[in-house]
């Protein structure tokens, strides 16, 4: 029998201070990048026109720009897309009537002698109204996702668990957004779908650990143990599953990233990063926060009791 972990008893919770430090550093880097570099929104959210073209022979970006300059589109954003002869051209809103942008780009590029034959493979136009709506809806979707999860866990477990789980998910979202910002990837609709998937995945993971803790408590297996120890046990008991599932999901996402084509690459990137941070955050954010919160609450209860009956309180500790 192959087993990754035999009776794991890692002291996850005990070492959580280091994890908090790591999380703080990672979050600082991500937030820093988000603040200084920002997110590059795709035309889904900003509105504008995107034209994907393919040439017979690979040209340079400068050649493509020279071609576009013929119709006054010289300041468009030009990006290589997947392979050397394929490009994406983004034109912001208002630069021209977007309806005929595909035709205009094609005509301009066909005239440039340095470029060879060109094929327009995709044209996307998002008007200002739709862009604004999508922005708003994206925010609502993420908030609805977080709210739904908070509610579900608060009902299924308790409010502490719900808040800690949402904190973990929030951490994951920030890390993923930071990773997007650091790697200069666009925030598009598929990326948003990826983020919502990661929200689901991360919570999924957290629930498995919480579920185990509750089951152990129900069976009276936590007697004589502190809450921190009980949580640590639950995390260890579910560790094999957590890691195995993370590995299979990571494989699936990794395959998408490697073979899914350029169109799916950003989406798959979110999943790959998200699986890693989602697994990490289950242990070191969701579980650890519940432990600290519980200790804090218990500490206050004790402190109150200590005020009333100092002697008895000392006995308990």
């Amino acid at each position: 029998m192959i087993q990754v972990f035999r009776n794991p008893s890692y002291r996850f919770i005990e070492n959580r201070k280091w994890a908090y430090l790591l999380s703080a550093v990672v979050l600082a880097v991500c937030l820093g990048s988000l603040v200084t570099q920002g997110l590059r929104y795709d035309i889904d959210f900003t509105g504008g026109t995107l034209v994907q073209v393919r040439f017979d022979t690979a040209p340079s970006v400068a050649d493509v720009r020279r071609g576009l300059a013929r119709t006054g589109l010289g300041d468009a954003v030009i990006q290589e897309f997947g392979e050397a002869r394929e490009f994406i051209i983004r034109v912001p809103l208002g630069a021209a009537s977007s309806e005929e942008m595909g035709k205009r780009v094609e005509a301009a590029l066909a005239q440039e002698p340095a470029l060879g034959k060109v094929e327009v493979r995709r044209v996307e136009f998002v008007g200002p109204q739709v862009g604004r709506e999508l922005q708003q809806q994206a925010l609502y979707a993420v908030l609805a996702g977080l709210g739904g999860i908070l509610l579900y866990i608060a009902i299924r477990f308790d409010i502490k668990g719900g808040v800690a789980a949402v904190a973990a998910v929030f951490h994951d979202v920030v890390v993923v957004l930071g990773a997007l910002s650091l790697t200069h990837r666009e925030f598009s609709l598929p990326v948003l779908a990826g983020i919502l998937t990661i929200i689901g995945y991360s919570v999924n993971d957290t629930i498995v650990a919480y579920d185990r803790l509750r089951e152990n408590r129900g069976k009276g297996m936590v007697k004589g143990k502190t809450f921190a120890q009980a949580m640590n046990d639950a995390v260890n008991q579910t560790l094999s599953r957590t890691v195995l599932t993370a590995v299979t999901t990571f494989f699936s996402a990794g395959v998408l990233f490697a073979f899914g084509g350029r169109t799916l690459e950003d989406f798959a990137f979110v999943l790959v990063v998200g699986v890693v941070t989602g697994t990490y955050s289950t242990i070191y954010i969701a579980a650890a926060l519940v432990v600290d919160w519980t200790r804090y609450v218990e500490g206050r209860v004790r402190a109150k009791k200590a005020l009333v009956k100092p002697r008895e309180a000392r006995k308990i500790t």
Partner: protein
Amino acid sequence: MPRNLKTRAAIVLIVLVASIWYLYPPKRSISLGLDLQGGIHLVLGVETDKHVASQTDRAAEDFRAALDRRGIAVKSLVREGLRAFTVELASPQSWNDALTVAGEFQTFDRGREDQGAGRFTLTMSEREALRLRDDAVRQGLETIRNRVDQFGVAEPTITRQGEDRILIQLPGVQDPERAKALIGKTALLEFKLVNENVDVQAAVQGRVPEDSEVVYQRRVDRETKEERRIPYVVYKRALLTGAELTRADVQADPNSSGNWQVAIEFTPNGTRIFGEITEQNVGRHLAVILDGNLQLAPRINERIPGGKAVITGQYTIDEARDTAIVLRAGALPAPVTILEERTVGPSLGADSIRQGMIAIVASALIVFVFMLVYYRLSGLIADVGLVLNLVILLACMAAFGATLTLPGIAGIALTIGMAVDTNILIFERIREELKVGKTPRSAIDAGFHRALRTIIDTHLTVMVTAAILYNFGTGPVKGFAVSLFVGLAASLFTAYFFTRLLFDVIYMGRRKVEAVSI
């Protein structure tokens, strides 16, 4: 003790047969999204405001004509806002007569009266305006559907979206620009009399009589591509519109080689009106205006009784054909604007399918081998469950008529990774139970039983996020949400119910089980 083994096996069999039935034949059963087969996705906004305004204009002109028939002179008649117009009579003496005429306009309410000045305002009722807006979208939808049908697109999707939007999906269209022009054209054909009592040059500079307007005729020189715009002054009131057409066909223009023209034929009612117009206005010029552009303004030589006419305008054959289509299909009641457009060429779609398939197969293979190596016979059981999961997932999509998009393919690849999660949960649990010394049978029992609660929790949360995604997303993202949601629902069945059945068949039937291959 295999509980209801036969019943459970029968359920699985029924599901399997139903799935295969829905999936056969594979080419036809699952429709591919536009991002996979290529085509146009358009969201049009109907400018319902303009429809309300133009209906108000029309009512104002009708009102003017009605006053005219009773010999009431009008000093001015001006539209205010979208749905009101103010009339000022030439003399206050005709006040009562004018009010009687106004009473005939039942959808308009009278207000802001000033009898001394002979002035009052007619405002369209709120309800009528709402009805007009709704009409504009519904008629627009119908008209566009007609046009697309005549253009010849296989399996188009044309639906209303929200209050004033129309979603159009045309798979496999080769010339997106032409399709867009055809769909987006208002195609309002109007016949108006040319006002020959005014100086055209003065009108161009802004001195236009209140009942008239300036329209232009565009003439493009085929050689130099130079465009000339010739101004005409016409009366605002349309005597006849494209609504009275029954036919529109393409013909070669006999007077100018290489050009094409559109021959039109009126309805009986249109024929009668056309006859009257031509009879009463012999010697004058009749302007034929399409979407605000004057096409031609021939002199009426005599009464034309047959209800047939020809529109010439230096058309190429494609232009003439498309004009004929839009005239036959009728005008859009209000102009439309493109709010969102996504066009994917067929070659990109084919690439996407290829890459998506590679991703699914690779992802499935890795997971299959992993499960087999790690859990041995139990892993094989999980793998069989996974295959069944994919079959059910695809069958459900075929049954619900869901479309498979590129993100949808990603959703399937991801489902493979997440579906085995359920089996991993169960198998790890069985291993644990075995470790504490339980017999194989009771370990399997306990493993499935104890994992169930967690499995339901995890499935529910991800399905909640999938549902949110579906509600929020546009086409491709919706496709992702659908395959994720259905995949998870199927995984509850296959990874729990189905694998449990296999375990029971293998381990529970035998008399003595020595060990579990897990």
